[in-house]
């Protein structure tokens, strides 16, 4: 054990190991490297400014301006990531911590932040036509989207458990409100309340877990936790284990891993569909990235304790997500269950607890963001006015009425099933490789078999769209053909998602390259002047 500790110490950068960060005295205002915070600042500023301007000029606001503003802000934040990406690569500036050890400035957080921005772009584009159709127009949804992204960005770069919690709460509270956004649909209100109550409960678990970890290690900073745990052998680690368990409950709830998934189908179904798209993409991204940093970096030395638990969550999610989805007839619920099964795949990457595991999780999150945003984009449109037409029957004959839309949905569904030449395959290959490198063949096999079961679910939707709409001779069958209007925003969003799904599938290096550089670093408190 002592040898282990020494090895870990040697592995740490020399500047890090000897100076375990002392909590800074509260009176000193920490130095803030504002420029490194640009993406978060842009998102936050965009939300506040947008909300203020919109409330001042409400009547005069031309249509789609709020959506365009949001897209612009998110794109600006996305663009601002690129120079920072280069800066992190520069050894002089390197991965560092910001705001006195609260946030980590590394490629991992930048990559995840970029994904959150992409999710905001998709959600805003989808929301534009949706809000007009449902007669709910207003700037609130957009402001909440941006604020949720701020919370997510804080969460993915949090280098301190308390900051993780703050980010999580900002994200979650925005999402609770977003879920209940549809004022005239009872199911939306109900979903919002359900999400709120259960979400608050899980946040409490998380917070209690943080408290226990603090009790066990004497700090909440991840670097501190990591160094403490690798330097010291705890006589009695019940406190730490209980803390880890609580943290897993909290994160497991947010990422919708079975058996903590009960809220997912109801909330996904009840929420306004563009919000569901956002939840599935952004909330999952933020929660997984934060979970990965906390466990793979912070509790690296405890991986023997938490890996079996993550493995259990993973297998349960794979099985529940695929098997329970098969009996559903509501497309939104189907996709909700499929998101549970995707959570299982993502947990594989965390369970691997390796560099490849980390990069494969990021690739998977990128893939899932575009696939799920596209899928719910189509669902948004087919839901039609009232956002209630989500049965399988409502998709009958979609291929006949809207060939492009049906083809796009088919692409997203096949991608989710892991068909080659789509980004979904690259994602699955990555996590499978990651667990295989650990030698866990059987879990890789379980995952792939569950993917086959999930494929059945995706095929059911494709069957409804393509095959049920016509008889053997191609004549349309009796019954209503779905006629949906496709506003420009949704058109752009779905088009982008198709291009990304296929493009990244054919040229996977575009996403897997950056992802393999984006390893979360245990960052020390930034030295003055950087």
């Amino acid at each position, binding site marked *: 054990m002592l040898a282990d500790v020494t090895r870990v110490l040697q592995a740490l950068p020399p500047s890090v190991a000897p100076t375990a960060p002392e909590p800074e005295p509260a009176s000193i205002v920490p130095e803030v490297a504002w420029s490194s915070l640009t993406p978060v600042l842009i998102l936050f500023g965009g939300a506040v400014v947008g909300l203020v301007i919109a409330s001042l000029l409400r009547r005069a606001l031309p249509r789609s301006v709020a959506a365009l503003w949001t897209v612009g802000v998110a794109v600006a934040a996305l663009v601002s990531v690129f120079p920072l990406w280069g800066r992190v690569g520069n050894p002089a500036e390197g991965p560092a911590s910001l705001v006195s050890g609260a946030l980590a400035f590394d490629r991992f957080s930048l990559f995840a932040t970029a994904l959150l921005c992409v999710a905001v772009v998709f959600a805003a584009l989808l929301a534009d036509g949706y809000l007009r159709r449902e007669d709910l127009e207003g700037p609130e949804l957009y402001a909440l989207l941006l604020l949720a992204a701020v919370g997510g960005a804080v969460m993915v770069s949090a280098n301190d458990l308390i900051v993780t919690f703050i980010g999580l709460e900002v994200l979650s509270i925005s999402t609770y409100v977003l879920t209940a956004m549809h004022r005239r649909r009872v199911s939306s209100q109900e979903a919002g309340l359900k999400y709120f109550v259960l979400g608050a409960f899980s946040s409490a678990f998380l917070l209690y877990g943080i408290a226990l970890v603090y009790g066990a290690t004497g700090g909440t900073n991840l670097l501190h936790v990591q160094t403490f745990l690798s330097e010291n052998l705890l006589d009695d680690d019940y406190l730490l284990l209980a803390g880890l368990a609580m943290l897993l409950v909290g994160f497991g709830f947010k990422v919708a891993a079975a058996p903590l998934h009960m809220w997912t189908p109801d909330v996904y179904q009840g929420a306004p569909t563009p919000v569901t798209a956002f939840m599935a993409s952004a909330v999952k991204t933020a929660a997984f990235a934060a979970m990965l940093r906390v466990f793979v970096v912070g509790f690296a030395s405890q991986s023997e304790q938490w890996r079996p638990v993550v493995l259990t969550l993973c297998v349960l999610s794979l099985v529940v997500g695929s098997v329970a989805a098969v009996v559903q007839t509501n497309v939104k619920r189907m996709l909700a269950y499929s998101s549970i099964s995707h959570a299982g795949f993502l947990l594989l990457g965390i369970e691997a607890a390796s560099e490849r595991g980390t*990069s494969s999780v990021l690739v998977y999150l990128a893939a899932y963001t575009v696939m799920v945003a596209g899928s719910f984009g189509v669902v948004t449109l087919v839901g039609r006015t009232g956002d209630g037409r989500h049965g399988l029957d409502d998709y009958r004959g979609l291929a006949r009425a809207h*060939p492009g839309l049906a083809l796009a949905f088919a692409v997203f569904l*096949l991608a989710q*099933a892991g*068909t*080659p*030449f789509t980004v979904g*395959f*690259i994602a*699955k*290959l*990555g996590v*499978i*490789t990651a667990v*295989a*490198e650990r030698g866990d*063949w059987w879990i*890789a*096999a379980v995952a*792939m*078999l569950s*993917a*086959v079961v999930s*494929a*059945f679910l995706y*095929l059911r939707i494709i*069957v409804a769209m*393509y*095959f*049920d709409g*016509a008889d*053997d*001779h*191609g*004549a349309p069958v009796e019954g209503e053909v779905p006629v949906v209007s496709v506003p420009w925003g949704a058109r752009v969003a779905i088009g982008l998602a198709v291009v990304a799904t296929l493009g990244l599938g054919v*040229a*996977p*290096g575009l996403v*897997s*390259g950056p992802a*393999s550089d984006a390893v979360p670093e245990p960052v020390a408190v930034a030295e003055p002047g950087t």
Partner: protein
Amino acid sequence: MIAVVRAGAEAGTAFNPILAMIVVPLVGAAVVALVPRVRAEAARQVATIAAALSGGLSIYLLTEFHRGEAGFQFVQRAAWAEDLGIGWHVGVDGISLFLIVLTGILFPLAILGVRPEHDPKPYYAWMLVLMAGSMGVFVALDLVMFFFFFEIVLVPMYFLIGLWGHGDRVYAATKFFLYTMFGSALMLVGIVATAVLHQRATGGPLTFDLVEIATGQEIGTGAARWIFASFALAFAVKVPLFPLHTWLPDAHTEAPTAGSVILAGVMLKLGTYGFVRFGLYLFPEAAHFFAPVLLTLGVVGILYGAFCATVQKDLKRLVAYSSVAHLGFIVLGTFSLTNQGITGGVLQMVNHGITTPALFLLVGMIYERRHTRQIDELVGIQKVAPIFAGVFTLVMLSSIGLPGLNGFPGEFLALIGAFKGARWWAVVAASGVIFAALYLLWAYQRSFHGTPDEANRSFRELRLGEALVLAPLCVLIVFLGLYPKPMIDRIEPSVQELVRHIGQHDPTVDIEDVPAPGPLAGAEEGGH
């Protein structure tokens, strides 16, 4: 081995058609998708041109192929997704050459020969996508790339069966998709395991390169057996081997004619080709270990397929079951692990890919004329349509394996190989040849002989267009039956190399025994 690859690369420096063979149909599909809906005829023309172009390139490949070389030719390598270890690595050897040419011939014929009943535009687009995928699968020399193509062909075929099929098409399409995906799901784990174990042994970067892994042979025996089993499951579903064959009769019966043509001609070969290219090459010891199981399943398939075919009432289903039997011979030859057996297996892959599609085309023509495929409802066609019956007889005799037609040399070589490598299996399998004669001749007798009743009296004779589609296949049936030497000359060096490779890694195979040309010459004599 590396030297061989280099030589092949030099041979391909002039012009390497492989990428174009895959891309041309895809471009064609995109163009078809852009054709306005009202101009369906234009979609057909574009599809024909694209398929013929790609097919032409495959024939160029054949003419430029260096006979007598064992290694891969037209090799092309490029980085693709380096951090994942996937590379673009393609090449052709004697084993894949004729399957590529077969793909290049069958697709244009299927597109020309069969018009869809409705929605021509998406139909042709899917056909072209299917063509691109099928081409890719036979040239891929990277495990993940192979998996890419192996799996992607499901999607167009799924839509072809589901949208343009008959009867219980949705059930058949879904069953087809899920069965095959189930098989390949575990193969993906196997592929990843192969690469990871290879990496562990060499300490180098992760790679999925087939040649590199196979020549390295650094995977332990136990692991290799497990991985081979995962590959075998995927291929066994695709072949299909008893008892994983149940998707096949459904898919074949409900598929549109062109779908059956491609399914029988090209897609079933993915399984047997996979066994030869990946199973035997990567895991020689495991292949030897599992050979008795696979030989048994092959023989069971031969007999079971024949029995089922005998009792079918539906002509198309009968042909489908006959495929189960024929593919059994290929598996038998392959897992005899002898030079003759594998050569025969490869020959039979190609020849089955000529004969059975022709049979499906003919059955499709019967269905077009009579709107039924039930043998009871057909009678006396020979009297009304003698040319049609003549062509049917020729193709049927080839399927039975009559010497002088193309069905014979492959089956014969496979049996010889099996007799040398796995005697008692060969003895049982040989009886399958008789059953093939039984079910096909009996079906022919019931539907073509006799006096035509009211419904069959108006059975239309073969039209010129139909004849032109069947003509190339019939010419090949006769030519390859009488003179299989050009094919054997190109296939054999690669097979010998493979058998030597197996022998190196398995002491029980006698290397001295391997390059015995005697029985091959005998096969030619039998052919004349």
